[in-house]
């Protein structure tokens, strides 16, 4: 993506969000699922690519994200083999850029220039996080799972701030390397929904 204007950038992100809300990520084709490494969880030094929208598959650069704009959904991609790890929905993440001053210490430690990453899978019953908007209680924008109204604050390590979700979203440490957003470590916390009893 070659330095799009702000206007174009904004449109791209909004489009990505709209698609996320309704259609979410395209399901992986069988061939992609079969590629070795496609169902491995994100690995250190993986790059992140847009999961949907006009730029699906393109590497996300830090300047693609702006404070105050909604999250984008992303897949990790092995830069050596070019395998996009979309063999399991447990690999998909949301990334959002926040004001670094608002982040708590744990979150800041895993962020890159205010950009934070979390598993897209809601810890309640496994729906994807699909919305970004004002919290049910409070003024700040939060990550929302609209299946049963769970909300997670991305500034505080995605802790649950509303709804039935039992625990925070798993966090994905991020870094910036060679001008791209990259994965700095494996997921912190359990990816996926609760299981009963």
């Amino acid at each position: 993506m070659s330095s799009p204007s702000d206007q174009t950038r904004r449109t791209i992100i909004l489009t990505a969000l709209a698609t996320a809300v309704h259609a979410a990520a395209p399901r992986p084709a069988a061939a992609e699922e079969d590629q070795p490494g496609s169902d491995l969880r994100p690995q250190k030094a993986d790059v992140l690519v847009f999961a949907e929208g006009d730029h699906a598959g393109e590497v996300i650069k830090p300047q693609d994200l702006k404070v105050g704009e909604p999250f984008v959904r992303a897949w990790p991609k092995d830069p050596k083999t070019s395998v996009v790890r979309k063999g399991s929905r447990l690999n998909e993440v949301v990334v959002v850029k926040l004001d670094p001053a608002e982040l708590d210490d744990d979150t800041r430690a895993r962020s890159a220039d205010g950009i934070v990453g979390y598993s897209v899978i809601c810890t309640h019953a496994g729906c994807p996080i699909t919305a970004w908007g004002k919290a049910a209680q409070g003024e700040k924008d939060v990550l929302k799972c609209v299946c049963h109204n769970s909300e997670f604050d991305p500034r505080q390590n995605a802790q649950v701030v509303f709804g039935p979700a039992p625990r925070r979203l798993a966090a994905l440490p991020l870094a910036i390397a060679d001008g791209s957003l990259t994965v700095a470590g494996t997921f912190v916390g359990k990816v996926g929904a609760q299981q009963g009893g």
Partner: protein
Amino acid sequence: MTMKQWLLSSFVASTCLFPIGAFAGPIEKYTPVTADRLKNPEPGNWMLYRRTYDGQGYSPLDQINTSNVKDLVPAWTFSTGVVEGHEAPPIVNNGVMFVATPMGQVIALNAKTGEEYWRYKRQLPDDLFQLHPTNRGVGLWQDKLYLATTDDHVVALDAKTGKVLWDTKVQDYKKGQYLTLMPLIVDGKVIVGAAGGEFGVRGYVVAYDANDGKELWRTFTIPGKGEPGNETWSGDDWKTGGGSAWMTGNYDPDTRTIYWGVGNAAPWPGDTHPGDNLYTTSVLALDPDSGKIKTYFQYHQNDSWDWDEVEAPMLVDVQRDGRIFKGLIHPGRNAIFWVLERKPDSIKYVAGWPYVYTDVWKGIEPETGKPIVDPAHKPVMGKRVDFCPSLWGGKDWPSAAYSPKTRFVYVPANENFCGGFTGEKVPLVPGQLWLGTKPEDIGLKVRSGATHFGELQAWDPGTGKKVWSHNFPRSQLFGSVTATAGDLVFVGGTNDRMFRAFHAKTGELLWEQKTNSGIVGMPVAYEVDGTQYIAVQSGWGVDAQRIQDSLVTQNNVGLENNVPQGGVVWVFAVKK
């Protein structure tokens, strides 16, 4: 070995060989379930979803009645250890109780003491997307029981041990296919219906051989090319048109006809799927042997409101206008209380009226029973449309009950809720929500001036009159109703965690008990060794929780969001 070491090692050995007191199982005495027993269940048992094939949710037991219900106390309780919506009726067969919980667990208990015999825990896949994490019960046949799972399998268990006997994949959960209902058992067939209308599926009802899990027939609720009814769809819309069938059907053994409710059309805005859209929002009359559709009745055409009419109508002999006829009664999600007549080759409209406020219908065509829509309140693409009642309807899946003693129908209704959304066209991606709107755009609005929300209503289907109602000023009512010959009506469903008994004739509140969580489960009545019990699961979640969250965030209501989760089986008896 010192004495202490010896004591310790013998303690360890005994805990390994004989688990301390926790399990009584396997079950030694178990009464096989036969076709005759399901057709004419003993008064003390609850072996089908609504106890009897007619779906009335009525128990002939009257030891607990209007004069002694005030003395009802807990006899025993059992923590399931599971969170989320516990919606299943405790199923009871001659002193053995089977409880199904969310996340695909089944617990076998001594119905008299609450002692655990065995527990089955399904290992659900990590990547499962459970939009409705719940289960509505297990079906019984011979010495087996049957569980339908959210990862879209039907599993047969040995009733005595809980061992898996067969496990059949129904469809692929990764495509948004899942199951939450209690299987209907008819003459050795295990019959289930698909959930997944929110994912753009094509719904169906499917039957398996109870012995080996082999598929016997599968009937799609949306007719394919060349099948009658396909002409009510445009182009290829039928392939993804919804019509899921996620509630247990009822059955008329005399005519060998299953009545199965069919859900909403997909995606929601009706202008995305022009036509009447058979058989969405309908009741199908099916042949249990072949799955053939004998006839149907469509409650409303071209559904645009997410008004799933999945609850099967109750089979009731109705006395009306000087005659008695074999009726079908259905308080619809679309706000209309339906009285229909079931005939061998047709289902005829008799009467219908709104039982909660609605601005969608201007009336019903008297000949056909087609409701007349007000287009101002019909969702379309590209525009915000509001409508009453909300998309949870006048009554969602929680069941109404009928008492042949009072001849009243008891409806867990919700009044004064409206909703709305903006229709938006989006591409279908299998396994992802496909609603035709942004999920976060779905509104629940309280009507201005509302004095209450939940209403337990008693209707006389013979006269069309509301006989009584009990209103809940600070809560929705989201739980199934059970009636008994003791002239009692039991229901939970409110956000204050109460379980209540009402006088069936007058609506007087006779008894209430606070429970651990909120009750979205179905109460049952049963008897062991001459004592009558009332049982229900308390465990809040799913849509009751969603409505609660929406209510809480509406400042004008000022409710607190304080319904804790976690399932407990409660069993009550009269204090001696």
